[in-house]
C-alpha cells in the first residue's frame, strides 16, 4: 500500500485537494478565501492530469496521456494565474465599494 506509488495514490491526493477546496468555497465568507478554494480545486485537477501522464507511475511505463496531460496542466496554470489576477482586481474593487471582503455583503443583485 505504501509503495510502489501508483496513479491511485496521486488520485487520492487530488481527492483531498478537491474536497477541501470545495468545503473552502462553501464555508468561507472572505472573497480571497474563496479564491484560494478555487485554486485548490484547480490543483486537484492538475494532479490528476499529471498522474495520468507520468510514465513513472505505470508499471510498463506507458501512461494514457503524455504530452496532453502536461500541456493541459500548463494551460490550467496560466488560466489560473489570469483568473487570480482578474479575481483580485474584482476583490479590490469589491473592497473599495463595500469596505469589506465579506462576499455576503455584496448581495445587491438579490431578488
Amino acid at each position, binding site marked *: 500500500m505504501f509503495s510502489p506509488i501508483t496513479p491511485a495514490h496521486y488520485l487520492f491526493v487530488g481527492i483531498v485537494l478537491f474536497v477541501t477546496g470545495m468545503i473552502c*468555497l462553501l*464555508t*468561507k465568507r472572505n472573497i480571497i478565501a474563496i479564491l484560494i478554494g478555487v485554486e485548490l480545486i484547480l490543483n486537484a485537477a492538475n494532479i490528476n492530469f499529471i498522474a495520468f501522464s507520468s510514465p513513472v507511475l505505470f508499471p510498463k511505463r506507458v501512461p494514457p496521456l503524455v504530452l496532453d496531460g502536461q500541456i493541459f496542466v500548463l494551460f490550467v496554470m496560466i488560466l489560473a494565474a489570469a483568473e487570480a489576477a482578474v479575481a483580485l482586481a474584482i476583490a479590490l474593487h469589491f473592497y473599495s465599494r463595500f469596505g469589506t471582503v465579506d*462576499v*455576503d455583503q*455584496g*448581495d445587491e*443583485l438579490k*431578488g
Partner: protein
Amino acid sequence: MSSLSLVPQLLLIAWMLPLASFVFIFLTGSFLDRRGRASGFIATAAIAGSFLLSVVAAALWFGYYPLDSNHQASSHPIRPLSGDWYTLAEFGSIKLALGYYIDALTLAMYVMVSFIATLIHIYSFGYMHEELHEVNDPQVILGDGTTLRRPGRFARFFQYLSLFGFSMLGLVIANNLLMTFVFWELVGICSYFLIGFYVERSSATSAGNKAFIVNRVGDFGMVLGLAALLTSCGTLHFDHYQTTNGAHYAGLFFYAKAIQHPASELEPAEGSRSEDSQSNPETPPVTLSGPKGLTYGLLVLAGLALLCGCLGKSAQFPLHVWLPDAMEGPTPVSALIHAATMVAAGVYLVGRIYPLLTPEVLIVVAVIGTITLFMAATIALTATDIKKVLAYSTISQLGYMMLGLGTGGWVAGLFHLFTHAFFKALLFLGSGSVIHACGTNEMPQMGGLLRKMPWTAITMLIGCLAIAGAGIPLWAGFSGYHSKDAILAQVYLFHTTNRFLGWIYYLALVSAALTAFYMFRLWFLTFIGQPRNEHIFGHAHESPKSMTVPLVVLAFFAVVAGWSVPGTHWSLSALLEQARVTPLLENSQVPLFGNVVIPHEHESHEAQIHQLVSLEAFTAGILGFAIAVVFYGARWLDPAKVCQRFFGLYRFLLNKWYFDELYSRLFVRPVTWVASVAAWIDRAVIDWTVDHAAVAVRSLAHLDDWLDRILVDGAVNRLAAAIYGMGEWFRQWQTGRIRNYILWIVVGLVSLFILGSIYFGLGMHLVVGAS
C-alpha cells in the same frame, strides 16, 4: 563576381540605415527632443553611412566594370545585377518581392541621393534649430489673437527625412514595378508630411493636400499601367527572376523586346544576355510567364499610363500645380525632395522603364516636357517669392529632362537630372539661408545682401551660373552647361529629322534665355542694389557653419559635376553611358506616326551639331543675362514700367497662366454645382415628401394609440401582473450570496455523479475507462 556579389548587400545596408534611423527616432522621438540634437545626429549618421556604403558599392562596381572611352563594355559584358531580397508572396509566376536591380544608373542615383541628403541633413541642423525649443509660429493666429506656441519638432523633422531617405533609396533600387510603386507612394507620403510640417498653418496643410491629390491623379494612371503590364506579362519584374521553386522567368524588358523583335520571342534571353547565357552554362533556361497577351498597342497604353505617374511626381504639365505650393514646407525639404531627388523620381522612372516606352510615348514625353519647360520659365519671370521662382525653375528644368529623354537623349536627360540635383539643391539651400536671415520669402523686401552674406551670395551666384548653363563654348563650363547642351543637341537633332516638331527646339532655346534671365533677376534682386527693407537688412546675418558648409560643397559640385576626372575619361556622362538601355529605339521608327524618327543619341555628339548648339545656347544665355542686367543689375530700365506696358501678359504670367483658376472651373466648380443641385433636390423633393408622410403617419398613430390603450394594454397588463407575481416568488431563491449558489452547484454535481453512477455502474468507467 566576388566583388560584385557584395554590392547588393552593401546597398541593402545603405538602404536600411535610414529606416533604422526612422524607426529609432520614431520610437524615442519624444525622449530625444528633450535632449536636443540627438535625433539629428542619428539621422545624419544614418544617411552619411548610406552615402559611404554607396560609394564603396560604386567603387566595387566600377572596379569591376571600368568606364571606357568608347562607351563600350570592354573586359566584361555589362550585366545589371538583379535579384530578390525578400519575397512577399508568389502566385505561380507572379512574384511580389523586394529586390534589387543594380546598374551604373542605380549606383549613381544612390550616391547622389545619399550625398545630397547628407548635406541637407547637415544643413537642417542650422536651419531647423528653432525647432529645438518651443516654437512661436507667427503665421498661425489663434482664436484669441495670440500666435501659436508649440513644442519644437526637431526629431519629427529628422524622422521624416530619414523615412524619405529610405523610401527614395528603395525607389531607386527597386527591381520590379510593384516595389517601385510602393516606394513611389512612400516618397509621396513623406513629401506630404514634410510639406505639411507646419501643420498648424492652413496654407501648409492645403498645400500638402494639393500635392497629395494631384499626385493621386497621376498615380491612378500609374496603377492602370501596372495592371496592364501585370495582366499581359504576368510579372512586374524588370529583369529575369527566379521563384522559390527554382523556375526562372523573364521580366518586362524581355517582353518589350519581344514585341519589338517578334522573331526573338521564343529565345530565352535577349542581347548580350543570350550570349552571356551561352557562354555561361550555369545560367538556367528562362521560361516565359503569363498569358503573353502583350501587344504593341497595349504597350503604348501602358507606357502612357505609367507616364501619368511620372508627370504627377515630376510636376509636369498639366499636373505641375502642386509643386509651387509645396514650397510651404521647410526649405531643406524643398531642396531635398522638391528639387533634387523626389521630383526627379519621375524622370528617373522614365529612364528606368525606357525599354518599355514606345516611340509614341516618347514623343508625348517630349511634347509635354517642352510645354512644361516653357510655361514654367515664363511664370518664373514674374514671381516674387524667392522659393516660388526656384520652384518654377525646377519645373522648367524637369521639363528639360523630360524633353531630353523624349527626344532620345537618355544619357542627356539623366545627366541633367544629376547636375540639376546639385545646383538646384544649392540654390534652394542658398535661398533657405537667405530666408533664414531675412525671415521673409519676398524678394522685393531684400536687396544688397551680398555684403551681409558673402558665402551665401557667392555660392548662389555659382548656382545661377550653373543653371543658366554658363561656360566657355566648346571647351568647358559649369555643370549645367554640359548637361543642358547635351539635351539641346539631342533636341536639335530631333528637330532636324522631324521638321514639323521643330518648334520644340526653339522653345527650348528661348527657355534657356528665360532661365538665365529669371535666375539672375533672383540673384540681383536678392544680393545687389540698395536694401529695400532696412529692418530686414539690419537683422540679416550670415548663416551658421552647418548651413554654409553644405552650400560650399554643393557649389563645388555644381561647378565640376559635368567635368570628367582630369586625365581620364571618367565622367558622369560616361558613367551613365555605361548604363544605357536602348532596346526599343533600335529601329528608331515610330510605327503610329510613320514619319517621325527618334534619332540615336550618339549622332548628337558629332562635333558640328555640338558646336552649333553650344553657340546658340550660349547666345541665349548671354541674352537672358544681359536683360537681367539691364532690368535688375544696372537698373537701366525700370521693370515696373515694362510691366505696365505689357500689363495683360504680366497679369497672365503673374497668375501662373491661370492654371489654378482653370482647374477650379473645370473640376472644382462643376462638382460644387452638382452638389448644390443635389442639395436642392434633397430639400425640395425628398424632405417635402418625408414631412407629409410623417403627418399622415402621425394621424394614423393617434388612432392606433386609442386602440392600443383600450384593447392591447388591458391584455398585456394582466399578463405582466401574472409574471410579476411569478418573479416575486422566484426571487426568493436569488439570495445574492455566492456561497448559496456554490452550494447548489455542488448539489448538482453530486447528483450528477450519483445519477451517472446509477446508469453506468459505480465503476466510473465513464470518466477514465470508456475511452
